[in-house]
């Protein structure tokens, strides 16, 4: 029982489990006996279930895929269906062969780490590394602003004492960006809803005019504003 549990925990996915079942019985990966492997696979899932182990949906998905191939191959209603089954079986075999290769590479990587244990290299560059920036789509921009508005301080009786126009905001952004190379959105934002909205519209206009470009270091990260082609 314990032995079994240990085995289960090492499977990183349905393909890994399939590979194990194939190799355990020395089956031919280039021509998998589908009926046999489907049986073994489902038996395994049942045992996992008995032991109250959580079975991720990808394992179930593979089970249904195996059953579908099996039924198409063993009980085809038409010749066409049998051909489909053959094709799907072939695809699964190809996926398994590819996956097996990646598993081998993963093992090679593990070996490399072992060999290199205890060797250290310089980590922090004195000269800062270029940050990898991803250009932001309109959708990303809208997402960030939506998040900002949600977090903005809402004063029930908001009295707008100073009106900021979009033009003024554009000026501010352009001035800031002329001064420094790179501007973070959070640096120029005040916490009021009106300011967030005006900034959003100003940014859209500046992007359209190609005066600025917007980037992100990661999804949902701060927006980084850089000079555009027409700045």
């Amino acid at each position: 029982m314990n032995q079994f549990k240990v085995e289960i925990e090492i499977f990183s996915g349905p393909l890994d489990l399939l590979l194990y079942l194939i190799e355990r019985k020395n089956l031919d990966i280039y021509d998998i006996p589908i009926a046999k492997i489907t049986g073994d696979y489902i038996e395994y899932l049942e045992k996992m279930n008995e032991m109250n182990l959580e079975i991720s949906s990808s394992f179930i998905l593979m089970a249904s895929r195996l059953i579908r191939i099996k039924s198409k191959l063993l009980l085809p209603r038409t010749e066409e269906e049998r051909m489909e089954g053959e094709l799907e079986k072939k695809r699964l075999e190809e996926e398994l062969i590819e996956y097996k290769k990646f598993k081998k590479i993963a093992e090679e990587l593990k070996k490399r780490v072992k060999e290199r244990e205890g060797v250290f290299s310089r980590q922090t560059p004195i000269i800062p590394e270029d940050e990898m920036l991803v250009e932001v789509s309109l959708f990303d921009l809208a997402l960030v602003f939506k998040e900002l508005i949600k977090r903005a301080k809402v004063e029930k009786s908001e009295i707008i004492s100073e009106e900021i126009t979009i033009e003024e905001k554009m000026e501010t952004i352009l001035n800031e960006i002329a001064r420094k190379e790179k501007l973070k959105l959070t640096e120029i934002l005040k916490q009021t809803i009106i300011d967030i909205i005006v900034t959003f519209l100003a940014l859209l206009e500046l992007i359209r005019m190609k005066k600025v470009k917007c980037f992100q270091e990661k999804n949902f990260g701060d927006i980084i504003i850089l000079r555009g082609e027409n700045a």
Partner: protein
Amino acid sequence: MLDIEKIKKIIELILFVNGKPVSERKLIELLEIDNETFNKAIDELRKEYEERNSPLFIEKIAGGWQFSTKKEYSEWIKKFLKKELTLHLSPQALEVLAIILYRGPITRPEIDSIRGMDSSGVIRTLLEKKLIKLAGRKKVPGRPLLYRVSDKFYQYFGIEDTSDLPSWEEI
């Protein structure tokens, strides 16, 4: 032209100030020397470190040259940094790294389909550990993010460059 002794000193300096591997091309351009002279200089420099039994050695990683420490002193470095420096990578993480290494730049859905399961958690961990990095977006609907391995990956695994690894056909 600089004499070989001077060239060696300058290479040593550059490798010292730069925290990550310095490419051969960069060094050759900087010093305005030819490949042959560079190879001679770097060979001699490495030999000198070896002969004086230095705790440092110069090695080629991620297609560039850098200083690394010898294994036998690792306990002192660990003691100084007061932490275990070995990253613990799960079999899943290694699998995803292998895929990104050989197929990168690659998107998450593509990785998922090779593995037959969701990889978002693993990818997040690898990004946090800085073993992979973003490589822009793929020009397909939805513009999914692309991932590739980082220089830190090459450093951590001690891989010179991709030719240092078995080719896809060999595996």
